[in-house]
């Protein structure tokens, strides 16, 4: 029995990076960027006339993207730092991190990468499509 029994430490407040919702931050940043871009375009194209300079729209998108990318990068960086806090993972398993913090850190880091790519995909649209047609 002894092998399976272990003591559970008393409940302590964990830092943010060890909470479940830390995982959701970078995808949420993508979601906000996505929604803001979409709503800006939808309102812009419905409410302004065709003659209005669409460059303003592209500048707006550029600002949104910079803000979102900076935020995602920060989250990704903090998460990445979190992966290194425990012992090295066993050599035969490339991600079998046995502790919770490295797991959350690594997964959040991957999610930040994915969210970054998705955000840049959204930004790419403004490069190719320049008006409300």
């Amino acid at each position: 029995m002894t092998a399976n029994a272990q003591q559970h430490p008393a409940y302590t407040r964990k830092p943010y990076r060890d909470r479940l919702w830390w995982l959701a931050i970078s995808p949420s940043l993508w979601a906000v960027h996505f929604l803001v871009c979409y709503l800006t375009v939808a309102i812009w194209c419905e409410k302004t006339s065709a003659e209005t300079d669409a460059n303003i729209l592209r500048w707006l998108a550029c600002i949104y993207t910079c803000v979102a990318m900076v935020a995602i990068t920060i989250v990704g960086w903090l998460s990445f730092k979190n992966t290194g806090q425990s012992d090295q993972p066993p050599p035969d398993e490339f991600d079998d991190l046995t502790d919770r913090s490295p797991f959350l850190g690594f997964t959040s880091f991957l999610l930040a990468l994915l969210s970054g790519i998705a955000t840049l995909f959204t930004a790419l649209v403004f490069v190719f499509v320049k008006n409300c047609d």
Partner: protein
Amino acid sequence: MDDRAERLLQAWQTPKGWRYWSAVNNSEVGLWYTLTAFAFFLFGGVLALIMRVQLAIPNNDWLTPEQYNQVFTMHGSVMMFLFAVPILEAISILLLPQMMGARDLPCPRLSAYGFWCFLIGGVFVCGSLFFGVGPRGGWFMYPPMTTEYQTDIGPDIWLLGLSFIEIASIAAAVELIVGALKCRPPGMRLNLIPLYAWYILVVAAMILFAFPPLIAGDLLMELERAFDWPFFDAERGGDPLLWQHLFWIFGHPEVYIVFLPSVALVAMIVPTFARTPMAGYSWIVLAAVGTGFLSFGLWVHHMFTTGLPGISIGIFSAASQAVAIPTGVQIFCFIATLLIGRVTKNVCILFVLGGLATFIIGGLTGVMVAIAPFDYQAHDTFFVVGHLHYVLIGGTIFPIVAGIYYYYPFVTNKQLSERSGTISFWLMLVGFNVTFFPMHYTGLIGMPRRVYTYPSGLGFDIPNMISSVGSFVLGISFLVVLWDILRPKRKQPLVPRNLWNAGTLEWCAQVPDKPWGIRSIPIVSTRYPLWEQENFLDDIDNGSFYLPDAEEGLRETMVTSTVDAQPMQVLRVPGPSFLPLLAAMFTGGVFIFSTYHWWVAASVSALFSFSTIVFWLWTGTALIPEKQNKHVGLGLTLPTYVSGPSAVGWWAMFITMLGDMTAFMSLVFGYFFYWTVHESFPPIEFDGRAIIGPGILWPMVSVGCGLAAWGAVLVAHRMNKIDQSLLFFFSLFVSIGLSLASALALSCSVYSTGMDPTHHVYSASVCVLVLWAVVHTLVGAVMLVYCGARRFAGRMDARHDADIVNVRLYWHFLMLTITITGVVISLFPLVA
């Protein structure tokens, strides 16, 4: 068997005879749920075969267009609402607690209620087909066809019957989220959860945010159909596109809601047969969470041809591309696991591989249609029919059949035939591809979807005939599976325990199985405890872990913390009861009678349903236990009663209210959507009558009273906590009064100004927000009365305060609802 085991068995005994149907335990409810969903699948399949017979030859008049339209509408609706979503919830209800060494889900009666709602609603909706009054507007129900041009009850059956089922789906989602987060075995930290649970967690959260917009849309459409509120009537300022937005905000995540749980099954099956842990655990969690998020950014790709601006189209095209990345990652993780391990061949792995090969085709064609220019051609053609069936059958049906072969011994302790499994696999693979591959071609050469027939001479004849032949081969393959499931197996020997030699907890179950779920709740320190923890099964069987006994004869399971699964509480879960069945019947009555506009019957049914639910809550929830703490084994003592964020009830309320808020925000979205499409919103006048708004006074009075009522709720909670009984009742009383005043003031903003919701879409969209807020405020008042009664009856006190804590949580959300409503309807027009 020792005394402890005897007592435990006694507590978890399944009721016998006719009382069997009062069972609420996850193993019973999960099984009924699965079988019912599978029966609906067979029904939907027969409808598909009927369509294929009709389309086998050109100019066929075997079915009339009206019959065909009902058949294809029901095929889509049944497969989506009565099979795909329910079956995943069913399988999860059946398996999830066992995978996590729990004895049951935290709210078994809620699962039972959800199941009965599903059964009643499903039979009602399907039954309509046999009376020739089935819905015939497509599973997407686009207005204005379904509002102004179909005045029979078909669309009402769809709207009300399926809303009823959607509510049941949300109930199950709430249950599964709480289950995955709070009912894990001690030590099962976030990084040790079975991948299945990760997927289910993501999917249940998606249901929570995806279904409410559809329910909001259903509400709008039913208000238009029953009371002529012109949400989708272009003549009076409405816009059919709002429905498309709400429907697809639901409809696209829906695809992933259906697909991810099946991948979850694959993630359980692959490691077992590869004899190695899943490669890339973090990567798969990334894929699940990433897909969950990205899938909410795809909905407009169903609307690429509605004339939206190019940039909008591009934005959604981009997200549709991005979602392919996490999908690719998880497929590669599965293949990597197969490469790392030493695969034993088996019919399960055959179905997994067949599903993979099929799904990848669907995924690749999905990437194609996500490219907007190509979609301009492919949209609404048979190409899309082919694509979606590759995704859904490859991504869902094949894995589910693999799951049936894999988990059948878990449920029945008998094994299915490897031979007939192999036969059905090949029939399915061949039948499926022969049916659906030609459809890509048929679509590209110009055949639109949803046509009851087609002329000869366009080149459609041969590919359609091939598809029809293939569909029957596919049908036969399911008959083989069905036969294998149903054939009598009395003489067949029982399977050995853990026959696949799997590593996860559900395979701890003894053979023959006992109803207690698990003999004792283990401590888990690895992802595959059966492989990696020594002496594990013996320790469980000897009752060496937690809760090996039921001294009080009550059903108990363990609640642990969200991230690290530290033990927090012994949860008493309710036993058999007919209340969920009764409540579901009465709730069903409300929806079914409303379909026929029998308002009196519907109201009576609503009253009964309300009373049943109150009685259920009163007698079955937040009961004050006979002792504060309980020794659970291994020297650990846990509280038997907790409230607030440590309690499952609090989480259930929180999660439900997130869904509720999403539905409300969908209505608010509707308001602003109309603002964007109109030159001036609110308009000055319409149809010769001035447009009346709610003014500023009444909505602001309502917000003021609402905020004050919320403040009084906070005070009441505080007074209860410090045991000031008198002050508690006083503040409760004040808050009830204020909330009624708030509801009244909001109603006044409509009545005293003489707003007519049928006048213009502006009036209608204000009125629907008012209606929503008023109903929620009244519910909030009823909850306060309930809390007062609980305290008065001695069922709630300063220490045992779950009721008021949960109601306070409800009121936080209510406060937001009231404030947003007031601000939007009264202040926004000033700046618009």
